[in-house]
Structures are given as structure tokens and as C-alpha cells.
């Protein structure tokens, strides 16, 4: 059984919680005691209906204010797949939470209300999904029951959204007309929309092809930890432990270790369950080399003929994620990229991107909470990176405030600064 991670963004008004509630309920994931707790709380709040949003809004402050503040992770499974939902709030003030939820997603689910059409919020969600490199986007046109299940309305919204999406980088775009409240096209195909020939949402989630989304070309192993047992049994053992974040590695492969440039060959790829014939993302393994060379945490193992970019000048899209302070030119921050921790200085803020209109404002000199901009950084040590669009693991980094230790920004590497 395969694992699919998807992110949803939206507010209660879009029917997002109802849709998630229905997926969970119809796959028998909501338990009786959870449902009873939601019913009790709904009644106590005088809601007059069973508010399924309470299932995911787990924090006291969220229930009191009736809003989703943070990313909530939900789990369900069908006989075909196991799903992890990163359920994120949709309002602009929670852009950072959406980005967090989207960072690990294979698929994004964006909801629009069939009556209201493609709003600024829906465009923003689609843009963030594209910025975060989510390969599959599903646009659910919800509340179809309130527009008489009109094919014309559905086609109209599809065209409008396609027109906008042409400006984004979305590999796979799917439209599904649904009524979350009535269950049309959520789990089963709806009898009310005979004109719709596609899959139900759940069927699409079960079938969408994600195996080829991973980069299986550029072999990358950021070294996490060096295994040196120094026991009698494994006296000379040296394993370089880490998770494969791209490509495929096999014993016999000619490799190079960065930054040293030392070359060697893979002797074996070990796991607790024994050696493996090949390793690919996202496997956690330990690699042994034929030569006794100096390799440590933060180094990158890759093929000699296919190396990541090595450099100290980083050009990236950066989202500032904290209320305190802002990103400014000349600022120094800690930076974590793969297993490598360095320091970085902000050389330039080239522009700020308006997440609603995609307009570039080149006059800004800082980025505040939830703002996204194109930024040039200089690091104290070289990073070994790929473009984010080529590899989400070797193309992403976080910025950390050196005083408070807080994670203050997320970055996606674009091209190298020339």
C-alpha cells in the first residue's frame, strides 16, 4: 500500500471541513467517541448542527474562536492507499501554515464554492501549491447542489481557473464537481451529474500516479550520521547514514563526496534488515565506500557525472514566517539545508510577490510575516543544491534566528545568482 500526502486549504465557508469530514466518515475513520465529543461541543456552542470542523480544530483557542489556526494532520486509509491530510487554514494571515502543510504534500486540494466562483483566496491557494512544487492540484467545485448540478456553471469555472493557472507551474490539474454536504462525487460517482465523466474525489486520490513524481535521476545522499560501531564484530565498519533524497544508488556506483571532492565507489548499502541492491528516495540507509576517506555530517554523496550545484550565492523565493522582526538586507541568520547548517547574510531583496495578484513589487526593502519575495543570500560555506523545481529536498532550506532559535523563514532555491 502506497502513502499519499495531500494538503487542503480553505475555510469553513468553502465546505472544506465538511468535505474532509465526509472523507473520514465514509472511510470509517471517524470514531464514535470523536463524533460524540463533536456533537456535545457543537450543542454546547449552540451551533444547531454537527460542526465537523471541531474534529480538526483541536486547540482550545481554535474551538473558542471557531477558526483553524494551525496545521492539523489527519489520517485515513482505504484498501488501496494510506492518506495523510495536512489540513491548513485558508485565510491570508495563515499563509505560513499553508506553506508548512504544502511543503511535504504530493497533492493539493483547493475548494471553490460553485456559486461564488474563483475568488482571490482560491487563486492564492493554487499559487502557493505551485510555488511549493506540489505536482498534482485538484480543484473541487463544491456546492454543486446549490447551482442545480449545472454542467454549464462547472465548465465556466473550469475555464476561468485554467486561464489563471496557465500563469502557474502546475504539472497536473484536475477538476471535480462535488457536493460535500450531499456526498456527490466525494466517495461515489454522483447520479445527479450524469454529464461528468471523471472520477469521484476519493477514487482520484486512490489512483493518481505519484510514483514518478520523485526525482529518480539525480542521485543525492546528504550524510546525516556516521556509523562507527568500533565493536569486535564490526571493527572497521564505517557507514554513512542518511536518507536518499534523489536518484538511485547501487553498490559499484562511482561517487564523489562534496565538498572534499574525494572520489570512491559504493561497496555496500546497508540496512538493519541486510544489504540492499539499490536505494532510492525516500529510503533511509547506510552506505559503505571502498576507500577510507574523510566523510562527515553535512557532506553530500552523489555520482561523479551528476553533481548538484555547489555555491555560496543562493537565489531563492523566501517566505517570512514570524510576527517578530522582518527580513532585511544585511541581516545575518542561521540556515539549514539538507543536513548542513551554515550562516547566511541577506544580500538583496529583489522583489516582493503579491500572493493574490502575482504582481512583483521591486521597491520593497523588507519582508514581514506571510510575505514572499525573491531574495539573494550569501552563505559562509558552500551548499550543494538543486533548483527547487528539480528537487524539493535539495532545493529547500529554512532560516533560523540565531538569538531566539526560532524558524523564521522558508526558502526555495531558484537559479544560481550570476
Amino acid at each position, binding site marked *: 500500500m502506497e502513502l499519499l500526502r495531500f494538503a487542503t486549504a480553505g475555510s469553513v465557508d468553502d465546505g472544506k471541513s465538511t468535505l474532509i469530514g465526509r472523507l473520514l466518515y465514509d472511510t470509517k475513520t471517524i470514531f464514535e467517541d470523536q463524533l460524540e465529543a463533536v456533537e456535545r461541543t457543537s450543542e454546547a456552542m449552540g451551533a444547531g448542527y454537527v460542526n465537523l470542523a471541531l474534529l480538526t480544530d483541536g486547540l482550545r483557542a481554535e474551538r473558542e474562536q471557531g477558526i483553524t489556526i494551525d496545521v492539523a494532520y489527519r489520517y485515513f486509509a482505504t484498501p488501496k492507499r494510506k492518506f495523510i491530510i495536512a489540513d491548513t487554514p485558508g485565510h491570508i494571515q495563515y499563509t505560513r501554515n499553508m506553506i508548512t502543510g504544502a511543503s511535504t504534500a504530493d497533492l493539493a486540494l483547493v475548494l471553490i464554492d460553485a456559486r461564488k466562483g474563483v475568488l482571490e483566496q482560491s487563486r492564492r491557494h493554487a499559487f502557493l501549491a505551485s510555488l511549493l512544487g506540489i505536482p498534482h492540484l485538484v480543484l473541487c467545485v463544491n456546492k454543486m447542489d446549490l447551482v442545480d448540478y449545472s454542467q454549464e456553471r462547472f465548465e465556466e469555472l473550469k475555464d476561468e481557473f485554467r486561464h489563471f493557472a496557465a500563469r502557474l507551474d502546475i504539472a497536473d490539474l484536475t477538476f471535480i464537481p462535488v457536493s460535500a454536504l450531499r456526498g456527490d462525487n466525494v466517495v461515489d460517482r454522483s447520479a445527479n451529474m450524469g454529464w461528468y465523466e471523471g472520477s469521484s474525489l476519493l477514487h482520484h486520490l486512490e489512483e493518481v500516479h505519484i510514483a514518478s513524481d520523485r526525482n529518480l535521476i539525480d542521485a543525492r545522499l546528504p550524510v546525516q550520521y556516521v556509523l562507527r560501531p568500533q565493536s569486535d564484530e564490526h571493527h572497521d*565498519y564505517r557507514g554513512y547514514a542518511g536518507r536518499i533524497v534523489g536518484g538511485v544508488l547501487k553498490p559499484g556506483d562511482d561517487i564523489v563526496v562534496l565538498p572534499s571532492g574525494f572520489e570512491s565507489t559504493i561497496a555496500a548499502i546497508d540496512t538493519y534488515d541486510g544489504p540492499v541492491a539499490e536505494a532510492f528516495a525516500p529510503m533511509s540507509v547506510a552506505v559503505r565506500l571502498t576507500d577510507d576517506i574523510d566523510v562527515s555530517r553535512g557532506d553530500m554523496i552523489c555520482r561523479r557525472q551528476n553533481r548538484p550545484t555547489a555555491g555560496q550565492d543562493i537565489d531563492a523565493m523566501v517566505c517570512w514566517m514570524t510576527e517578530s522582526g522582518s527580513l532585511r538586507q544585511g541581516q545575518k541568520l542561521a540556515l539549514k539545508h539538507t543536513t548542513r547548517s551554515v550562516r547566511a547574510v541577506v544580500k538583496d531583496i529583489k522583489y516582493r510577490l503579491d500572493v493574490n495578484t502575482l504582481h512583483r513589487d521591486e521597491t520593497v526593502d523588507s519582508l514581514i510575516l506571510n510575505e514572499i519575495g525573491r531574495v539573494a543570500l550569501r552563505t559562509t560555506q558552500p551548499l550543494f543544491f538543486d533548483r527547487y523545481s528539480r528537487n524539493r529536498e535539495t532545493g529547500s532550506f529554512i532560516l533560523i534566528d540565531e538569538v531566539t532559535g526560532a524558524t523564521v523563514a522558508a526558502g526555495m532555491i531558484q537559479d544560481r545568482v550570476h
Partner: protein
Amino acid sequence: MPSTYQLSHLDALEAESIYIMREVAAEFERPVLLFSGGKDSVVVLHLALKAFYPCKLPFPVMHVDTGHNFAEVIEFRDRTVEAIGARLVVASVQDSIDAGRVVEQTGARASRNLLQTTTLLDAMEEHGFDAAFGGARRDEEKARAKERVYSFRDEFGQWDPKAQRPELWSLYNGRHRRGEHIRVFPISNWTELDIWQYVKSERIDLPSIYFAHERRVFERDGMLLADTEFVTQLDGEEIFTERVRFRTVGDASCTGAVESDADTLDKVIEEVAATRITERGATRADDRVSEAAMEDRKKEGYF
């Protein structure tokens, strides 16, 4: 090996957990693995063995011992730790009581569950642990659904849900100051069913109380509590013998059993797949106090 380069969901979850544990071992000075003998901590321990093979565990194992345990679990704990040659630290709630750090609750409903927090924090400080692996899962409870894999705790061990660090991709931020620490939950993304399927596929040994057996129990608040020396029956609470098993393992005074005939792994998996009540809802009196019972306890430094 599959030629399609696909991992099963259990392999993908395992790879993620191993990655998290290696990050912690590399970036922290003194991690510790919290081990209760419960199935989740048994799985975390198993993952740790896999993460560092062929090395021994690069950190000790700690049990916060309420003194109100099921004998089978303590026996299992000692046997398991000895078999892997790990160092076991026992932090005892009884010692905290004797030292006057906490005051024992009284009455028939007394439980040492809440007292564990002080014992845990004192032990973290005494041993200088800066990271503690726990077996919490996000599917267990709604406050946990919002908790990060690296859960930052201040010098009082408190969790502030509104001040959590964003956690993106697989870039975990373990920065902390002296006195602060991080709770790490490597199996955050696993569900109860994943745990059982993994236990089966990896042939992991568990305490016998997870499987159906005859036990003297009594009913309280719709739960079956075991008749042990640690709880006193209230008026009208009759003791009877029932075929039961435990879905969670905790303090004997607040962990309920469920009626069950599942005496093998396959039967347990079947039962878990078909169940309509969450494991904490079925068996944990500590979560029934209020809608936000878990959130409130975590804010005070609970697991």
C-alpha cells in the same frame, strides 16, 4: 527490490522515523528515549535499533515509573532493555513523592498519572537530557494532531501550542538554549493500525497484556479497570472476571481494558481495523476530564 521504486506505506513511515532519530542523535548532546513498555514506545525503540545498526543505541532509555504498573510490563521492560544492551534510567514517581516534590492524590479515584510530569522534568534536568524521544502519535488525540515532530519545551517543560515553530519539508530545527529541551515524536504520522501491522511484519515482541486474557476487573465510568492493589473500588463497583486485553499501557489506576477475544496479532489487527472507538477514548480516564484535557496537561509539561 521493486523495480518500480515504490515503498509500501510502512516502509515509507519507517524511513521517515529513522531519518528523524538520526537527526536527533547528530544534533543533540544528550538524547534519551522514553520507554514505558507500551506498544508505541516499543516500536520507537525498535526503530532506534534499526536507525543505528550496527552500532549500539547512542542514547539511554528512560522509564518514568509511576510505581503503579502491571507486573507483566515491568518484566517486559527489563527483559527488552537487557536483550539490546541499552542503559536504563528509571525515574520514579515514588521518589518524587518521598522527596516532597509532589503530593500523592487521595481517594478511590487517585492516580499518579499527573505526577509523572514532575518526575520526568526532574529527571531530564538531573541527567542533562536535551532531547527526549516519545511514542506519541497525531491520530491519538486532537491536541497531538497539532504538535510538531520536534516539540519545543521551555525551561519548565511546557508546551506552547501558539508558539510552535513551523516545520517544513524534512528540515527539523533543534535549536535550544540551556535548560530548554525538545520532545521528539518520530512516529507522529503513524496510526494505531500502522503500529500493529508493523509489529506483525517486524515480529516485535510486546507485553502479554495487549492480548486477550482472563482478568479480574470492575467497571467504572464505562471502562473496565483491572483489580490491582493500586485502586480501591467505590460502593457498588463489583469485581468480576472477564476476557480482556489492553489497547494502551499506562498507569494501572487509569488505564482501562477492553473486552476482547483477540489473543493473536492477526486477531488484534482485525479488531483494531474494525473498531469504532479511539484507543484513548476507550481506555484512558485521564483524557475524559475535559475536551482539552490533553492540551492542558501538555502545556504543563506532560509527554
